[in-house]
Each structure stands twice: as structure tokens, then as C-alpha cells.
């Protein structure tokens, strides 16, 4: 097994920070978040599941798609995408799984989303296995595991004094060329117990979900919803967005516009508002139903994977205790 000391790992990360956009878990005023870092000193190595997923670094919360300039009658359009390579270090396996879920729509459908594809291409995912399941976590029920290498380029597992290093993909192998590792027969300090859930969360077939469209489950869980966007914004697989043009500068004969896309959320009241003002999904239970149907019925039917990786972020961050595990349990029990 390839092994790296924490000291060597930090040296490598410091060199990497010079060459690429390095993203890693950081303490931001008491919140653990994936953030750009300039040196390994800023990185948390002993950390829980970051409060927000790593989604924003491949699918930015706000992204400029086009810069448009109009001079007189002449219009120019320019795409500006970052060219530098990006490494997300310390990404949790569930977040990598989340990218695989989004890939099914943004990469594998025709035409692919070129902006998402660009960020995906320039990014290498270096994961660190979770030493345990955290509050709300249920990745093991969603086909993942706290140490699942499947969707990562590199997986690190903590051992005494350092990490066991596993290059999962070719991209990972290339990235690791600059990292000095030793061969050492050391098993990761990881027990089978960390993979187990005390109570597995049941997943119900899409066809069965369809039968429950009019069920009272949706009123029961939706009535207390605040119609905020927390669950969708912390989610590693929610990928709805809206597009708009913003005027940056305007004077006689000259206009500069940015076409942006920004995250949107099906839980918000005006998500379904159409031209003329009609809202075809005007109630909280209807919107909550859509969120769960999207994850467990529409998305798997249309694109393949389930729209949930069991990261548990929505579970812990919902201010009114709308718990996806409970909803899945209720659906299974019907």
C-alpha cells in the first residue's frame, strides 16, 4: 500500500497550490466549508462533513456564461471560462458521488452542458474517507460508503501519522506523480462498523412512487415547509438553475451585458411562475412532493441514477425537520 506522511502531503499541497486552483475544507468563522486555499496551513485535515457540498466548484452558484457588448449596431459575444486546473482536496466520497449523479444529466445527455463539462474536465477530486458516519448521514443506503473510492480520482484513508493513498483514475495517477509515497503494509484504521447504519433507509422503486402522487404524505411533510432553499442549496445533486441577462454598463451607443446562470430551487414559491404570473405549483406540499419525486422517481427514470447520495446535509440543516429519511420510510411503508 502506498503511504504518505502528513508532512509530505502538506509539502505536496503547498506545491500544488502554486500550480492549480486548490479547494479544500477550511474553517470559515466556525463553519467547515470547501474554500479556495493558498497553503496547506489553511486546510482542515480532521474535519466533519463540510456544511455545504463541493457542488459550487463545478456548478457555480453564479456563473457568467457570456459577456455581451453592443456598440451601435455591432454586437460581440465572449465566453469566459477559467483555464487553470482545479483540485478539490479532502472532498468526501458522497460529494464525489453527487457529481456522478449530475453527470448523468449534464454530461451524458445530448447536448452536454459545456460549462459544467469544462469545470469537470479541469478538476481532479482528491477524497479523504470519512472516519465515521456523521449526523444525518445515510450514504450506505444510497449505494455509497464513507470510504467509497468509486467517484473519486484519488482516495486518502487516514492511518497513524499519515494516509494510505489510492489512485483511482488515470487523472488521479497523473496528479500523484509529484507526491512522494512509501510502500508500507498498513491497513487503514477503519472498521466495517463505520459503513453500517443503525437503521438502513429504504429506497422505493420509481413506479411505486408514481402511485403515491396523491398520497397524504405530501401534506403531512409539506405543510410545515418554509419554502426556503436550504435543502436544495446544500444538496450535492440538486442542479436547477435560471438564466438572466444583467446590464453592467449602459451609456449612449454602448451596452455591456453579462448573461449569468444562478442556482434555482424547486422549493421556492416562484420556481414555477410562468409568464403572465400563473404558478402551476402554488402550494408547499406540491413543491415538497416535487423535490422528493425528482430525486427518487423522475431523475432515475429519465437519467438513471437516484438523485440522492445520502450525505444528510438537508436532514441537519432543515429548520423545520423535514427529514428525507423519514419521507423515504413513509413511502416504503405505504
Amino acid at each position: 500500500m502506498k503511504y504518505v506522511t502528513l508532512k509530505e502531503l502538506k509539502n505536496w499541497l503547498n506545491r500544488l497550490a502554486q500550480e492549480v486552483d486548490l479547494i479544500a475544507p477550511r474553517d470559515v468563522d466556525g463553519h467547515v466549508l470547501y474554500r479556495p486555499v493558498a497553503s496547506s496551513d489553511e486546510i482542515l485535515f480532521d474535519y466533519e462533513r463540510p456544511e455545504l457540498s463541493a457542488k459550487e466548484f463545478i456548478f457555480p452558484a453564479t456563473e457568467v456564461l457570456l459577456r455581451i457588448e453592443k456598440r451601435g449596431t455591432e454586437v460581440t459575444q465572449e465566453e469566459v471560462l477559467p483555464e487553470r486546473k482545479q483540485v478539490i482536496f479532502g472532498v468526501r466520497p458522497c460529494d464525489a458521488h453527487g457529481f456522478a449523479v449530475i453527470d448523468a444529466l449534464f454530461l451524458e445527455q445530448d447536448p452536454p452542458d459545456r460549462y459544467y463539462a469544462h469545470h469537470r474536465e479541469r478538476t481532479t477530486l482528491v477524497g479523504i474517507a470519512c472516519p465515521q458516519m456523521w449526523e444525518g448521514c445515510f450514504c450506505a443506503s444510497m449505494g455509497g460508503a464513507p470510504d467509497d473510492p468509486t467517484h473519486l480520482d484519488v482516495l486518502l484513508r487516514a492511518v497513524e501519522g499519515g494516509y494510505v493513498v489510492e489512485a483511482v483514475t488515470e487523472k488521479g495517477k497523473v496528479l500523484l506523480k509529484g507526491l512522494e509515497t512509501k510502500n508500507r503494509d498498513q491497513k487503514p484504521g477503519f472498521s466495517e462498523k463505520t459503513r453500517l447504519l443503525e437503521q438502513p433507509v429504504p429506497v422505493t422503486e420509481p413506479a411505486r412512487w408514481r402511485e403515491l402522487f396523491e398520497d397524504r404524505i405530501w401534506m403531512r411533510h409539506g405543510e410545515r415547509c418554509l419554502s426556503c432553499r436550504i435543502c436544495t442549496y446544500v444538496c450535492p445533486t440538486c442542479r436547477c438553475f435560471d438564466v438572466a441577462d444583467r446590464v453592467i454598463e449602459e451609456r449612449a451607443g454602448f451596452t455591456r451585458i453579462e448573461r449569468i446562470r444562478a442556482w434555482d430551487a424547486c422549493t421556492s414559491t416562484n420556481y414555477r411562475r410562468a409568464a403572465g404570473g400563473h404558478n402551476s405549483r402554488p402550494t408547499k406540499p406540491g413543491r415538497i412532493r416535487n423535490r422528493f419525486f425528482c430525486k427518487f422517481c423522475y431523475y432515475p427514470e429519465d437519467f438513471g441514477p437516484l438523485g440522492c447520495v445520502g450525505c444528510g446535509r438537508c436532514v441537519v440543516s432543515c429548520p423545520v425537520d423535514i427529514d428525507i429519511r423519514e419521507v423515504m420510510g413513509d413511502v416504503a411503508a405505504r
Partner: protein
Amino acid sequence: MPINESLTQQIRDQARQLLTEERVDLIIGYEAGPTGRVRPAFIYDPAEVERLIWGDGCVHNLINYLHDKKHSPKRGVEPPRVGVVVKPCDSRSLNVLLAEQQIERERIFVIGLACEGVRDGGGELAAHCERCTDRAPALYDMLIGEPPQVSPVEDDWADLDHIEELPPAERLSFWLREFDRCIRCYACRQACPGCYCTTCMFERDDGLWVDMGIELSEKYVFHLGRALHLAGRCAECNECERVCPMGLPLSLLNRRLVREVDALYHHRAGREEALSPLLFELGEDGSPM
């Protein structure tokens, strides 16, 4: 969360009676979810009142949900009559909504609770409870529990002074650093009983000042704008700060305006029943009438 058995029983009895006698169509109270977390509960059937609980984990301001029940679900049917469990801070926001003619008083049955303060997540006393001196709701149709005798603690505004004393540039950088964490999820607005515009001005498609970008300038304008829209209306229930997933100290913004309005007009929103909105009370020269 420790459940107060005696008060819980009284709430259940009251709820059962109101529903059985058909004086209300539903009760909005609190229940414990399967993981033990406390959450809002909507009870329509007298047989389900056993779900209701009371304890110091009952943090949510349920007045917010009255907006959802203002309108009839079907044409030709009256809007529902609602029994609602109300803490002193929640009652102040109810007063604000009554004064703004958002709620019909006769459609509401207020189950008032004597309150010693709440604890989010079973931890320490919530910050707004530490400075709260109200032990009984400002209005109720029935009071449950004995308001504990407490000697009023003067609010020393220390949290606010700490920020106000900073030089302007430092104060700005403090706030920009806080707003930077905001994810524009609008949980603060959605949890606020005072934020009930059908379309928020910060979410208009034709908004001139704020577009849908989730960037620092939008977050900055949104939070300052929201605070200003609540000037003289914020009942200090602190739901905005509680629900914020990124821990923004939003009470500092609201309290800045609460202090200003109180100093200028001796007006604390919701403290008295049906106190008119502040702006209706001002004379033409801006002084209180």
C-alpha cells in the same frame, strides 16, 4: 428535549376541546419527530392531539404559518379557523400582523404559553430569550402555565454596541465577511412572519437593484433591505437568525433598527395589542402624532 408533561397535557386537552367542539378547524402546535427533533405540527383530528408537546425545544414561531391559512383552499369555502400555540415573542409578531390587517382576529384562537425561554437543539438558552422579559404572551384566548416571576433584566445592547463602536471601515468589513457566507437561501425571509410580500422585491424579475446572482453585492443589499423593511415591525422573535444555515448574526441588524425606532418614537413592535404600524402613527413632520 425535556417535555413539560403538565403543560403538554393542558395543550392537548385544550386542542381536543377546540377541535371536538368545532371551534377551530386545525391546531398549529409542536410535535417531536422520529429523531426527537421538535417541529411544527398541524392537527386536524381530535384523535391526533396526542402528537402535541411542549418543552423548551419549541423554538419555532408558528405565527408564520397563519399566512398559509388566510385564504380558502376552495372556492365557496371559508378560510380555516386556526388554534395556534403562541409564546410571548410569537405573540408580538401576531400583534404586528393584526395591526397590519393580515390576520382576522376572530379566525384565530390563541393558546398562549407562559414561557421561561427556549433552547435550540437542547443547548443553551436562546440569545433572544436571555434579553426577553415577557413571560406571558401579549395576547391570548387562553393562557397555559404560570408566568414565572422574574425581575426584569435591562437589555444592555452590549452585542450591538460592540459592533457600533467599530470604525466604519471595520464595521463594513465585519458585515461583508458575514454576508459572504450567505447562500441566499431566503430561509431568514421565509421564517419571518413580517415578510409576507407575495413577490419579494429582491426576487422580482425586473429588479433594478438586485438580480438573481448569488454574490456578495446581492447578499449585502438583500440583508440590509430586509432589515429596513422590518424597521418598526420586527417583533424580535429571532427566527431569521435561528434558521440561518450559515450562522449570520441577523439579530444585530434587526436590533440596530429596533433601538433606533424605540429611541425616536418609543415604539416596540407588537408589545401592545393592535398597535398601529409605526408609519401610520407619524405626523406630517415625522414626529409621533
